[in-house]
């Protein structure tokens, strides 16, 4: 039993690492997108500059309590999820809160952020925010189903709801990605919606909704959201790696694996136009759901 | 078949015929008065039936008078006669009420057709 101070230190380190990695990945994504579009693109550290600028920008107005609380909720969700998801296999570097990293807890804490954010967006009174929020929540209902099916398939196959257990399983049986391919497929397709890259960027929908829920937020609010988004991205990627790719033994391995995963929504997004909301929902209730069922069947049979 | 039987069948037959005639009137005639007449005919038929069951050939009045004590066997049964008297009285009363109702109905509806008097239904 280490001291509380050690834990708090670990927590802070985890958050900082998550923030850095997430920001870098987002910058890389911009860079890669630019290269795909035959542009030079911004430097990979562009997002850090943007974040710093936003933090330094004045915010002279607010719309009330929830306007402050919304981004804070978002931050709670992302930090909690990054704390609960085991970053590395042995857990020495990042001694965080992962109490057997319960998956159902994770599922709920992960949707907590968008809801809090939506509340913050609601108080600004901007109609675009509300439209964006409804789209986001609708889409969430869409992609959560295949995602949960994939998780349930894994959980039932290994009779545990603990992320740590699932990681331990992979130490012996190999990556779940190969032993449960359908679950992986369903989860990956659900991830497309989770990352909200095109074609599922219906929430922000630039030029359509004026960036949706964040349209009233600049400066410190946007900074908080941005950092939360990067931490959250890191958390989600780590979760995928932990679930399907056997986790990581050191940071380098983690970075490689997470970036590989990250490429999927990124590259998919570069070449796709935007869906409408109902199209997005129907998309998730099409093939991903089918794969989810297959995953369940697979888990039941084997 | 002796005459007693014949008479009995005749009486029964007549009474049943009367009942049927009365029923026919009640069921098909549209005038209230005719319906009441039909009811009375039914009553009459039944009274006849009632009398008929007490019939004995060459019967005497059921009066115990000195000197004819041995005629008990030939006496007609007194009970149906008592009953029929009562029934006639009752029938009379009913008919009287019915006719008074008909007067009321005629005043109110200005008609005696039964199928036009159906304000109360369903």
């Amino acid at each position, binding site marked *: 039993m280490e001291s509380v101070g050690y834990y708090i230190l670990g927590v802070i380190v985890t958050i900082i690492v998550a923030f850095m990695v997430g920001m870098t990945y987002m910058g890389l994504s*911009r860079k890669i997108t*630019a290269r795909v*579009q*035959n*542009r*030079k*693109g*911004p*430097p990979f550290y*562009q997002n850090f*500059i*943007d974040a*710093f*600028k936003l933090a*330094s*920008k*004045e*915010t*002279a*107005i607010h719309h009330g309590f929830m306007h402050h609380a919304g981004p804070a909720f978002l931050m709670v969700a992302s930090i909690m999820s990054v704390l609960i998801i085991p970053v590395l296999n042995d857990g020495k570097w990042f001694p965080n809160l992962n109490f057997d990293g319960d998956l159902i807890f994770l599922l709920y804490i992960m949707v907590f952020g968008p809801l809090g954010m939506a509340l913050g967006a609601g108080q600004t009174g901007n109609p675009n925010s509300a439209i964006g929020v409804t789209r986001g929540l609708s889409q969430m209902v869409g992609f959560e189903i295949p995602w949960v099916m994939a998780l349930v398939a894994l959980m039932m196959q290994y009779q545990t709801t603990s992320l740590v257990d699932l990681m331990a399983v992979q130490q012996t049986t190999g990556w779940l990605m190969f032993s449960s391919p359908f679950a992986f497929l369903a989860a990956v397709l659900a991830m497309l919606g989770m990352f909200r890259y095109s074609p599922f960027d219906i929430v*922000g929908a*630039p*030029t359509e*909704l*004026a*960036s949706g829920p*964040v*349209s*009233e*937020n*600049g*400066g410190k609010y*946007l900074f908080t959201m941005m950092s939360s988004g990067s931490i959250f991205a890191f958390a989600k990627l780590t979760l995928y790696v932990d679930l399907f790719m056997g986790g990581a033994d050191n940071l380098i391995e983690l970075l490689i694996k997470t970036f590989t995963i990250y490429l999927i929504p990124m590259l998919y997004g570069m070449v796709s136009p935007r869906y409408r909301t109902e199209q997005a929902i129907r998309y998730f209730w099409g093939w991903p759901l089918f794969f989810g069922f297959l995953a369940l069947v697979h888990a039941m049979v084997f | 078949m002796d005459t007693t039987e014949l008479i009995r069948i005749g009486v029964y037959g007549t009474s049943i015929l009367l009942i049927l005639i009365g029923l026919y009137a009640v069921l098909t005639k549209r005038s209230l008065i005719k319906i009441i007449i039909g009811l009375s005919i039914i009553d009459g038929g039944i009274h006849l039936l009632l009398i008929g069951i007490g019939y004995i050939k060459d019967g005497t009045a059921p009066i115990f008078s000195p000197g004819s004590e041995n005629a008990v066997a030939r006496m007609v049964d007194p009970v149906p006669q008592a009953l029929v008297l009562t029934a006639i009285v009752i029938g009379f009363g009913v008919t009287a009420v019915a006719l008074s109702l008909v007067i009321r109905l005629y005043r109110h509806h200005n008609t005696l057709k039964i199928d036009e008097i159906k304000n109360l239904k369903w």
Partner: protein
Amino acid sequence: MINDKNSQKIADFIKNWARKHSIWVLAYGTGCGAIEIPPTMTSRYDAERLGVRGAATPRQADVLLITGYLTTKTLKRVIRVYEQMQDPKYVIGFGSCTINGGMYYDSYNTIKVLDKYLPVDVYINGCMPRPEAVLAGFGKLQQLIAEGKANGAQKYKDDHEYYRGNLRKIIGNKYEMPLYNW
């Protein structure tokens, strides 16, 4: 915590550096100049490499880009948008029309001189200015920001009555502008 002048300077330098390299543009596509923005942003000229990027709403934007002529009808809206932007904020006048009316110099319903209504930091000349010119304009703005000279917002704050007065001359008192949003 750090109150002395030198550290303030250092902080300002870092802030200005960050601002310089992260310019979020709210392009107010009022006139034909808007057609020049897409080439500026896309593959060929790729303004994003300079950190220039579109912003969706005034709350998030640093630069208000007035592309071309401004009609009297849109004027109050543009000013409203500008007032909603958060400090630090800059204005770029784009095309000749914003300087002197350009080919609409004698139009009855356009604004000839944008400077009267908004504190323009950088003008980009031309009708239309080509993307190269636009990039040059952004470069100039970055230079001004780095030097700390892009203080149009401060000017607007100081001479608020002047700008408001000019606005009133155009739109009259029929339309109440809400209070200024710092």
